[in-house]
């Protein structure tokens, strides 16, 4: 599995040939974010700002005011953490065409530990007006997302990528559309709503549930904002229970977003899988996913819990 950040770097380099306005910035982690691939191909349009994320984001804002298309990259924790207010005030308030594409999101960062594991970024970016928030699930989708936001979207975007690769969940017919969820599996009893590395976990869980006679639909909600309200309401109506899965705090990210949508229109039980209001720590990616309850086993248990809640909450209706 190619790391999604590798796909990001290669896509940037490809787009660099066709889009002269494309400018890339990094904050001394270009070897890790893979913007180094673009840097090598287009050294004049690459700016390494050193270890200064705030300077980087506001510089990107300045570039965007002139019609350039800046893509700024660093680790998720530093891009959305250290530079949050630059993102909010310099980039999003005037709705400038800046793309923040961050790698090393979530706990699968692994051994570096809690200081480097961003488990709040989906909450802290989702809340900023004008900002689009996208979490690609696999390599194909990553390439499409990067190309889409650079070519088609004239507005601030935040894209969160993990450190590692993920299994393919889309085939060659897939086309990413901002604001649209992709339906990866049909089902009647529950809908598993996932983003990023958790999408393949959701698919595995749905298969296992199938074997137990439970029919679970799977939605990849890569576009967290704008979110596909229609697909969510439809899922709530059809299956009556939702499970959300994200490599993020259960507060304010995908789980929060899904609850915000259904609670106002068609409240159904939503069980949220993610970090239970905790920081991460050092460990291997797999160990951490297990430790914090982000595995297929946990997804199966969560799905059953949601289905039980649905029966409890309104036995007649379903």
């Amino acid at each position, binding site marked *: 599995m190619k790391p999604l950040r590798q796909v990001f770097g290669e896509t940037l380099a490809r787009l660099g040939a066709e889009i002269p306005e494309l400018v890339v910035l990094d904050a*001394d*982690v270009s070897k890790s974010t893979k913007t180094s691939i673009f840097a090598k191909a287009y050294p004049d349009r690459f700016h*390494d700002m050193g*270890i200064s994320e705030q300077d980087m984001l506001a510089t990107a804002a300045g570039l965007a005011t002139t019609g350039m298309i800046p893509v700024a990259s660093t680790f998720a924790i*530093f891009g959305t953490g250290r530079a949050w207010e630059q993102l909010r005030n310099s980039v999003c308030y005037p709705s400038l065409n800046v793309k923040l594409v961050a790698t090393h999101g979530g706990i699968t960062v*692994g*051994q570096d530990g809690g*200081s480097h594991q961003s488990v709040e970024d989906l909450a802290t970016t989702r809340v900023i007006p004008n900002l689009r928030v996208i979490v690609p699930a696999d390599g194909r989708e990553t390439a499409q997302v990067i190309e889409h936001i650079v070519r088609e979207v004239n507005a601030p975007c935040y894209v969160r990528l993990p450190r590692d690769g993920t299994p393919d969940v889309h085939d060659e017919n897939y086309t990413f559309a901002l604001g649209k969820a992709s339906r990866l599996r049909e089902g009647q009893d529950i809908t598993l709503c996932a983003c990023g590395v958790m999408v393949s976990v959701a698919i595995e869980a749905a298969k296992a549930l199938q074997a137990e006679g439970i029919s679970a639909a799977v939605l990849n909600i890569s576009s967290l904002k704008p979110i596909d309200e229609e697909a969510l309401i439809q899922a709530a109506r059809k299956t009556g229970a939702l499970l959300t899965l994200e490599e993020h705090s259960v507060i304010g990210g995908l789980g929060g977003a899904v609850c915000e949508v259904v609670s106002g229109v068609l409240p159904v039980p939503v069980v949220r899988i993610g970090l239970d209001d905790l920081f991460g720590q050092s460990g291997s990616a797999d160990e951490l996913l297990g430790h914090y309850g982000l595995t297929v086993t946990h997804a199966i248990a969560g799905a059953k819990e949601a289905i039980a809640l649905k029966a409890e909450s309104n036995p007649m209706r379903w």
Partner: protein
Amino acid sequence: MERNALIQKLEDKAPRYRVDILEMLTEAGSGHPGGSLSAIDLISALYHGKLRHRPDEPHWDRRDRFVLSKGHGVPAQYAVMADLGYFPREQLWTLRKLGSALQGHPCKQYLAGIDASTGSLGQGLSMAQGMALASRLDGDRYQVYCMMGDGESQEGQVWEAAMSAAKYKLGALTLILDYNKGQIDGYTRDVMDLEPLGDKWRAFGWHVITIDGHDYAQILDALDESERVVGRPSIIIAHTLKGKGVKFMEENIGSWHGVAPSREEADRAIAEVRRRANLSLEEAVR
């Protein structure tokens, strides 16, 4: 301890700490060898020669404080702390593993003896400043030391703290800069040059001392000098070598920032550290 004996002790410990660092990182399978090996002589001299601290009473309220702002260099600090008895030596081999007190970046909640949780670069000097302000309010009861990387000093917050520490005339605050000339994307001078660095800190109102960060006599002199300075903070600009002690790292610092050696590489590195140590021992005897 008498000065020459202290220096001899530091010289004796240096190769052992280097071996521990290499073993820890190899066992962990990830981490930052370059910046741990450049910092170890400074950290060792600080703990053995200057800090007033009690390994068996890590929360002693009059202890001098040490903030490792370049948190990724923490294997160097762990090696010294284990040797001093803060925790059993076997714990070194749990570095970066699930549930370990030895987190990949130092975390106060996980390990007694760590004064500040770091890892996000650029914040340590401000935390050290807070401790120094508290020391003053408390009757100047302890000194505060902070160690920072050269790349790290590109963060804007560093210069905010540089201004405020001078405003508050924090004589109890000493910043040690591990000037190893490298960061992730390459040489510091190429990524974002810091020079003229001494002039910058002097202009901000700091007392500046420049030394060779692998020469114990110079390190100890600098620490003594900084302690004598009153009315303003001090910075020790320590020129160091990234990967110091392991030739294939020293010669290729760009490749050894954040990658652990393989077992085979570690064995080669450890053999070299041992060989170099024997050499200097023989020379000392002669």
